[in-house]
């Protein structure tokens, strides 16, 4: 650690990471430039577009306006941590199946916002889905298919009635 850097330890996509970060470095920059995780997209760099959305302790955050040192001791999930063992997550499958992926630039952030929603609220109303994705801008799809994809994902993730109970 130097005057300008800070050592942090956090859980990144399930694995413990220790890294020295500049005190003024944003999380998005550290993920992309230091850790090589380019799936976190950067666009506005001012917390408005949602392309850089990651999960910090299960809650969405615009990683372009979160200081990297703030995640010391936290659990961070990026898009690279959503598909486990090369198998697509049901949310990812649903986005593909509903035609909710166009240019793909907003997609990682959209998927993480969806994950945060469904992890906490497995059966959201249409209004809750809209609200949860309000901070993620998309200029291609018109959102209609994204809303359908979230409903489909919720359905896939819901436990089958009777199973294991």
């Amino acid at each position, binding site marked *: 650690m130097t005057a300008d850097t800070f050592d942090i330890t956090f859980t990144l996509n399930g694995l413990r990471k220790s890294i020295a970060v500049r005190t003024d470095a944003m999380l998005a920059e550290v993920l992309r430039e230091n850790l090589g995780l380019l799936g976190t997209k950067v666009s506005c760099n001012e917390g408005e577009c949602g392309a850089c959305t990651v999960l910090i302790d299960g809650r969405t955050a615009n990683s372009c306006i979160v200081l990297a040192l703030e995640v010391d001791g936290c659990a961070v999930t990026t898009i690279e941590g959503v598909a486990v063992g090369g198998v697509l997550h049901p949310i990812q499958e649903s986005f593909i199946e509903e035609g909710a992926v166009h240019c793909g630039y907003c997609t990682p952030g959209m998927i993480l916002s969806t994950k945060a929603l469904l992890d906490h609220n497995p059966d959201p109303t249409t209004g809750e889905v809209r609200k949860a994705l309000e901070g993620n801008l998309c*200029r291609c799809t*018109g959102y209609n298919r994204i809303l359908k994809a979230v409903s489909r994902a919720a359905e896939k993730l819901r436990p089958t009635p009777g199973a294991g109970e």
Partner: protein
Amino acid sequence: MNIVGKNVLRADAAQKVTGTHEFAIDGKVPGMLWARIVRAPLGHARIVTADTAAARAVPGVVSVLTAADLPTPMPLYGSVIADQPLLAVGKCRYYGEPVAVVLADSDEAASLGVARTRIDYEELPAVVTVADALAADAPLVHDATTAPGSNVHKQYEYAWGDVEAAEPACHTIVENTYTFPMIHHFALEPFSVIAWPEAGGVQIKSPVQHPFLLRRVVAECLKLELSKVRVMATSIGGGFGSKGYAKYEPLAAYLAMRTGRPVKISTSLDDAFVTARRLSATVHMKTGFDRDGRILLQKVDADYLMGAYADAAPRITQKASYVSCGPYRIPNLKTVARAIYSNTTPSTAARGFGMPPLNFALETQMQMAAKSLGIDPVEIRLRNLVKRGEQLVPGDIPADGEWSEGLRRCADMIGWNDPLPPGTGRGISIGIKNPIPGSVSNALVKLHADNSLTVAVGTSEMGQGACTVLAQIASEELGIPMDRITMIMGDTAAVPFDVATAGSRSTVTMGNAVQSACKDVVRQLEEMAKELGLIAPGEKLQINGGMMSDRQNSLSFNDIFTRYFSKTQGEVVGRGLYKGEVVAGHPLGGLSDFWEVIFIAVKAKVDPATGKVSILKMINVSDIGKAINPLHCKSQEEGGAMMGLGHALMEQMIYDQKGRLRNGSPLDYRIPTTMDVPWEMDSSLVENQDGAGPFGAKGIGESGAITAGAAIAAAVSDATGVFFKDLPITSERVWAALSAEKV
């Protein structure tokens, strides 16, 4: 058909949902320099002095260049005319114009260098509106345009029949002036380009829609041969026209050749607002109707406000005004359109290519005429819609669909005759556009010995799904499964020429080229089979699942390969060319391949207390000919419609009198979010296999953006009784109009 017409899942989707899809902004090349741009803080100003010493002293900064450090005369670039300098010389002409560039070993150092560069300006009066630009004593944006002493760059005129002579026969004349604001494309992926020197030329990686056009523009700017410029179009993170024409690539290419090192120019989303915008316009329209609502005449004066440099704007003005008749039978028409310079962000192609302002005007005229004549808005349109085979624009292809079918379906789906609760209204509109006339697409298809296929095309993948749809066409033609097809796209050194990924053209024009290349593969296989004595002369082979069969035998491509070449070598290369009809003396250079026609109906609710407009229901119907991939067609038209919704209700770039953009960031310039999606949204496709593309397909993509604004405006008028002639229809405007009514 096996693959065409199916909702085949997007070929690039797995990469996109896992974040592994590569965009240009993610790229790095060993030894690369980072370039950041110093931008003009005023719309129009003389550049007095530049002090770069402090910037050059920043550790990691390699050099800081202004126009004084570049060649004289300054290299210019542009697709229509080369009027844009790599860096501003002597004066800046728009807020955000590149005035200097900092090259550094890191992005951080380059950014710090920009902050430390000091440039002094002497402010000049700026031109930011059509009225400013046309004033008698208007400051001139350029010293010498094609109309010296004026900001009018070009004027285009179209006329048929006799407008003046037709006027006495009119029962009702509707005459209004409409304004359409400056709009930003708002692609999520910022502009980003990497260029590096290579073998006496330059290579460029950029998310560009038209790699071959960029190759030409860079070659002309830097005086290189076409073969010395290689453009590799990367997957585009949203374009909508903003990434069609050259932006930062000529500067990056110049810097790479000058320094002998790879150079990456990165920008932010804020920078995009000062890089590209849609043309704003003031449209004066006079439409004459007989007592039954039939159009007898139309006179249009459309003033399109370009930015400080031409980019594609003259062509947009020329091409949009060519279809100022909309989809209607207009026996007497006169249109004058002008492309006018201003001290604002250069305006370029944008979804709908100049049609939205004209469409908003014309469809509102129809709405007013319907009300004035007491005719239903659907009925008045039915009376004027041209029928299949009927002439639309004289000298061009006739109507290539039965458009009344789409209009009726759209009206049915919105529940046109259902009772409306108070405070709600319904509107319907029709959008039309032509693709790039007389255009060229080539495709190469390579069949390999293991029965897999490579399809090489100049089309760029910009989220529209070309990599999936073009593969579907090849798969259908050759019976090869989708997972055995690899698309090579947008690399000018690896694929044959294509003019552009624009104008909703690729499925039709490149689709035809791919289909024709596949047929060329089959023709060659037949020749080979005949030479091997596997089929008799004159006999045709049937393609079935990658197998060829005649009456007796069934043999695979692989059988022919192995016998004709050997087990380890050979491939069959098919070539396909599509060339639209070029017509000498035609104002646009040639004929339309098809007409892109879309119908939108909207049900809206207006809160009189706040002026807030809520869209309860929106229906999109496209006359598509044949949907190669229906799901992607529908989601494409919905995306276009939501962009149109943004234009209609909330989006506008705002300049102050010094020519400074006041809302050039996502915080201040709002686009629709999930909260703005209509409560109900549905789409439908009219498929009569009557298009010029493969399997009868027509193009789609610009679609909803052309006419969603007009449909929303009509619904708001229906709900409030007030016609809005200026977009966007903000809550403030609605509230003000309703309050004024009450007084």
